[in-house]
Every structure is written in C-alpha cells, then in structure tokens.
C-alpha cells in the first residue's frame, strides 16, 4: 500500500475559453521513507503538483491520499519548503521556527518547544544566527531556516518545491549535501521538485520526469540505484548515473517535450504609431511623438522535439 497516492489527478485554471489544463492524468505512488524527485520544465506545473499534494489546491478530478486519507486541506503533516523561503521578515530565525513549533505542539512545555526549535536550527548549522532577521541572512541561510522550520514541524512527508532554485551553484551544492545528510538521519518521506536533473539523481531514490505543459503528466519512474552516500565528484563517471541522466533527458526532450508543440501564449507586441512629419508644429499644437501602444497578441510557439 502506498504511503502517498495520487490517482488520475487533473487540474486546470480558469473557465470556458480561458481555461488552461495544467496537469492531466497524474498517477503517483510513494512509499514511506522514500525520496522522490520530480523533474520538469519551468512552467510545466511542478508547483501546482506540489500544492495539490500539500492541500493548498484541490484536484478537479482524481484524488490525493496520504495514508489512505483524502487530502482536503493543508496540514502540518505535509510541510512545504517554498522556493522563495517565505520566512516572515519581521521575525528572527528563532521566532520563525518557533511560530511553527508553538502552533503544532501547543501541549508541550515552553522549555521543550524551545529545545525543539534549537535542535532543528542546530541541525541546519544556524545556531550562531539564532537572533538574526531574514534580511540579515544570505539566500542559502534563509533556505536553511525554511528547511529547519519544515523539519521542526515533524511532518509525515516533506515537500520541497525547487528549494535550491534561487541559489548560486556553490551554495546549492552545499545545501544538497546537507539535505541528504539530514534525510539519511531519519529517512523521512520527501518529494523534491526540481528543474535540475543532476540534482534529482544525486539526491533521490527515484526520479520521475514531468512532461512539458499544458496538460503535463508524469513520465516513467526511474529508480536511482546508486549507493549512498553519493559523491558528487565521482558520480560523473558512474555509468548508472549517466544512463539515468540520458533516460530522463531523452524523455524531457523527446516524448515529454513534444507536448509543447502547440503552446499558445499571450505576447505584448510593440505597436508603434509613427511621428507625423507632415504636421507643422506650433506652440499649441506640438508634433505628435511616436506612440507605442503595446497591443496584446497571441503567439503560437512551435517547439522542435
């Protein structure tokens, strides 16, 4: 029996002619303690997918179940780490984490709650920055706080929505390792959304490509059978790594990318009305300058597979 189960999930936005189908036919089974990475194009609906799992959105068709219970609203059982950290800027690191802890464990003693907060801040190596506000932290440090907040909630499943997308390559590598370490300690179920195939392979037990939107759906699930801990320097030479990488990329550029061919999108075209040179300007009737009206057009993009 699956721990997290998505069955025939469909989700779209808008109504009538403005309706866009984002996700169709999503089926996903995740076992307890599994680390699954979902890789896909930007704008293909990855965030929509994770919002559905979190309960922030409801599927139009199909069901999302966690431990056989239908997910109908957000809950601390499914903690999310957002791409843009979403730390409350008026609270310091400690307060940001303790806001969550105080809310979720109201029956604990204050001392125990404090211990919990400090434990998870320590786990992401931020104890020295305990009293700093998010504005005083770097991007990587902010994301660590966000991870600590999610972990301190002791969720059943941890949802990571492109958590490292906004970071530079070096910080990203450090945080990838850190998240892997933490995961190995208590083997929590994790769903990682990313647009970086290498990141997925490096971190996850299983990698699932998401085809390009609209009407995105999940491709074939590919298990990553590379022993942990994985060394990012060595892994490039690992034939298994290369095979998985090729398979995912082939899917995304081939079968999964094809759906982009009829992509229609709104486009703002510079619509210029030229200056009227026949008109002799006077003080009261100056010559009309060229005008840019910026008309909205629809554009149809053909994508070569």
């Amino acid at each position, binding site marked *: 029996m699956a721990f997290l189960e998505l069955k025939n999930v469909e989700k779209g936005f808008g109504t009538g002619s403005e309706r866009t189908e984002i996700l169709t036919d999503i089926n996903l089974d995740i076992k307890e303690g599994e680390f699954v990475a979902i890789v896909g194009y930007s704008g293909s609906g990855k965030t929509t997918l994770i919002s559905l799992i979190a309960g922030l959105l409801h599927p139009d068709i199909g069901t999302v179940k966690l431990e056989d219970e239908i997910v109908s609203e957000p809950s*601390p059982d*499914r903690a999310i780490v*957002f791409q843009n950290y*979403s730390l409350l800027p008026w609270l310091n690191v400690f307060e940001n984490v303790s*806001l969550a802890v105080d809310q979720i464990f109201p029956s604990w003693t204050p001392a125990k709650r404090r211990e919990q907060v400090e434990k998870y801040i320590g786990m992401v190596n931020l104890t020295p920055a305990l009293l700093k506000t998010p504005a*005083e932290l770097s991007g990587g440090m*902010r994301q660590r706080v966000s991870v600590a907040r999610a972990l301190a909630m002791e969720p059943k499943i941890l949802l990571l929505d492109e958590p490292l997308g906004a970071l530079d390559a070096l910080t990203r590598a450090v945080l990838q390792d850190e998240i892997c370490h933490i995961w190995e300690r208590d083997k929590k179920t994790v769903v990682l959304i990313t647009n970086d195939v290498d990141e997925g392979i490096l971190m996850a037990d299983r990698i699932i490509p998401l085809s390009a939107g609209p009407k995105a759906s999940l491709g074939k699930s590919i298990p990553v059978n590379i022993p942990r801990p994985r060394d990012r320097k060595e892994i490039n030479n690992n034939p298994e790594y290369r095979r998985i990488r090729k398979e995912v990329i082939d899917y995304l550029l081939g079968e999964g990318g094809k759906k982009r061919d009829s992509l229609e999108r709104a486009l703002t075209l510079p619509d210029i009305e030229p200056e009227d040179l026949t008109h002799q300007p006077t003080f009261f009737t100056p010559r009309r300058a060229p005008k840019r009206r910026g008309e909205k057009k629809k554009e149809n993009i053909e994508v070569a597979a």
Partner: protein
Amino acid sequence: MSNEAFNKLLSFLRTIRFGWVIPFILLARGEEPKVQLRAILSGVIVPLLAIGIFLFGWNIASKQIVTKFGTVPGPRQVTSAWGSLMNEIRLEKIKKEDHFRRLREKRLGYVTKYEAVINDLGPIPDLKPSPKNTEALETLSAAFEEIEELLEVSNKVSIAPDADTAKKTVEGFNFESSRTLGATVVQSLLPLELAYSSAEQEWNLAPKYNPVEGDTEEILQSKSALKSSRSKSLAAKKADLLIERQRITSLATDQSVGILEAVPSSTRRTLRKIDANASALAPILSEKLTRVLADEAAGTKYKNKAKLKIMNKNFSEKPYPGKDTYVSQILTSLKTVFAGFIIASLIAIPLGVVCGLNKTINNAFNPLIQIFKPVSPLAWLPIVMIVVGALYSSDDPMFEISFINSAITVALCSLWPTLVNTALGVASTDKDFLNVARVLKLSWSKKIFKVVLPAALPLIFTGLRLSLGVGWMVLIAAEMLAQNPGLGKFVWDMFQNGSSETLSMIMVAVFTIGIIGFVLDTVMLSLQQLVSFGEAI
C-alpha cells in the same frame, strides 16, 4: 564606538532628516575631506544660500506692496511679531502673579476685617497679618510697583510732543530702572514716533494729489508718483516704528521678569504658605456656612451670616482667567489634530483590514471611499457642527464643542489615506506568507495578528503619515470656522482685528504651521522606517 553602531547612528540621522550633519561628522573623523566638503557644499551651503536668497527677495518685494495694514511684512517684521508673541507669554505670567497678589491682599484684608467670623470658626490655618506675612506681601507689592511703572514707561514717553517734554517725564519716574528705560525710549523710540507722525501729516495732504479735471498728462504722472512715494515712505516708517516698539516692550518685560525673579525665595515660601492656608480655610468656611444655613432653617439665628457669606465667596477657589497665549494655541491645535487623527485611525485601520481581507467588502466600500475622499473640510464642517450640536449637549461638557467639531472634521478628512493604504497593504500580503499560515493551520486571529498585520505594517504607516499630513492641513481651516482656540482661530482673529501687526502675525502662524507640519511628518517617517523590515523577502 564600533563601526556597526556608527553606521546605525548615521542611518538614524538620515531617517530623522538630519542627514546634512553627516558630512560634518565624517569630516571631524578625517574621512575623505574632499568628498565631505563637496557634500557640505551641496547639502548645507546650497540650501542655506537658497534660504538667504528667499529672505532677500522677500525683503525687497515686501517693501513694494502697500496694503491697508501697511507694507507687506518682511522678515524683520515677522521676527518682531514672533518676539511680540513670546513677549505676551511672559507678560501673561507677570499678570498671573499680579492677580494672585491682589487676591492674597484682598483675602488677608477680609481676615482682619471680619475677625469675629474667624474667631467663630475655632482653630484655623495661620492667616493673621503676622510681621512675616506683612513683610512678604510688601516686598511683592514693591516689586509690582516697579514693574507697573516699567511697563508704562514707553506709553508715557512716546506720547510726548517733543524730546524735552519726554525727558522731563522720564525724570518724574520713581524707579532707577524706569528712568534708564525711559532714557532709551527717548533716544530710540521717540524719534521714530515723531518721524511717523510727521509722515502721517504729510500723508494727510495726499488728497491734494488726487487727479482733478484739467490736469495735463505730466501733472497727473507727477501727482501719482508723489502719492505713491509718500504712501510707501509712511508705510516704511510705520514698519520701523512697530519693530522698535516691540523691542522696547520686550525690554520692559525682560526687566520686569528680572525684578520678579529677584524676589527672595524666603518671601516666596511665605507667600506660598499664605496661599496654602487660604485654600485650607475655604472648606472650613463653606462647611460653617452650610451649618449656619441649616441652623437658620431650624430657627437659630447667626448674627454674622452676611459677613460669613462674603468670606466664603472670597475664599472659594477661582481659576485664573488667563488669556490664550500663542503656545497654548499651538498646544490646542496639536491636541485637536491628534484627537482627530486617533479617531480616524481607530476607524480606518480595522475597516482597511476588513476591506483588504475580503474582496466583496472592498467592492462594497470602494465607491463610498472614492466619493468621500476628495471632499473638502469646509464641506464637512457644517454637517459636523449641526450633527454634533444635536447629539452632544451637556451643561458641563468634558470637551469644548468647537474642539469636537474640529477633531471630527479632521478625522473625516484624514481617514482616507490610512483606509486605502491599509486595505492595499493587507490585500497585497505575500501569498507565500498566507500559504505558511494555511499549512500551520493558524487560527483567524493568529493569522491576522501574526502574519497579515505585520506584513501590512509598512503600508499602514505610510497611510498614517499621509493622514497626519492631511489632518494638519485641514485642521487650520476647521479651526477657523469652528472657532476652536488653536492656530486656525489665531489666524482668523488676526485677520479680523485688522491691527498693524495683522499680516506679520499671520505670517508667523504660517511659518509655525509649516514647521510643525514638517516635524510631524519627520516623526511619522521615522516610525514608518522603524516598522519596515529591511529588504522585502
């Protein structure tokens, strides 16, 4: 000082609009003198130069325009008007002291006169004219004799027809200080008075220069030129005279204050003791009177009843009926604007939060907000006056009705910026913050107070700052019409009484209003920056 603390200090200075002192500080620390000097040039010298040019231009221009109150006041006249307002405050203090001195003497007089009544009261606080008490009273009286003469000097001397008569008047003064002041008046004020009265006589001939039939173009021109030059010269002489009068009055007040301050502290102690005893006597007297009245109703007569009544009347507490000074008018204005501002905030912030949270409610309120927002205080005030007049009537009101009228008008006009900005701030709360609140399942009140309101705080404070600015601007008009004894009424009264100082007084008010508005804005700006949390995340 550590570097971090120093940087904090600098940014604090910038916040409170004292950024211009920073180059001086850095220069003193020897950091890049060239850069600092350039900063001082552009940040300090240029603004000072601009002020200087403004004052100079104002000074020149003011002399060219003659109104029915004299020339338009220049910087000198306005400074002098400011001095005369400040002088009034000190004068008011002297008058108050005098009032209590007379009261004291009157009371002690009654104590001596109606000994019979006093003896009937049993043991009472010491109010007998003991040598110590008498001496203290006499010291103060002597001081006031001198003060009275000092304050009268300039009036007496300046009506003299010529310098010799004036000198004789001065010799007739009792006190050395008045004689010295008198000499100054003869030397400086009298010539101006004489010059002015002769210019006035000349001006009275001016109708001669009105155009009559048969004047050639040339004559007309010279007549008109002569008339205008006379009117200007008269106005200029009057302006000089007023400034000098003010200076002399200030001098007299200064010396008077000096004389009062010279009263020894032991005398002051005695006087305070007398006052305390007098107010201790008041309840004893009134109690006795009640008892006597009750006895009388029961049939027993009290032979000193009339005297007792007089004593009771004289010893009952009466507040000093002081005149409104400029400072008290400023304080009234500030009180009114803050009252209005608080009423406005108490309505606007909750309403704004509700509008920001719910699109439907926002849509419901939006047309009303858009229609009422641009309404002028002058349109609100009559409505407010009538409604408040109907609803708020009491014999002993806690607040003056004019105060309530002005405050509510201010509130009605300053409501909108806070309302609109709060709604905007709440509505534009980062969606991720709300998602965090949803995942954590925060309760409604926790969501509002821990997430939505803190996120909206910078915009709320922007709104509050705009509101206070609008409120202060509106206040003056409201006070003028509602007759609330603040700056607005001051301007209105000055306009109505049409004295020669009218225009300069109004200009003093203009500068006062401007400076206070600037200070209020700076305070709000500092608060606003205090609640903004660095960069948005």
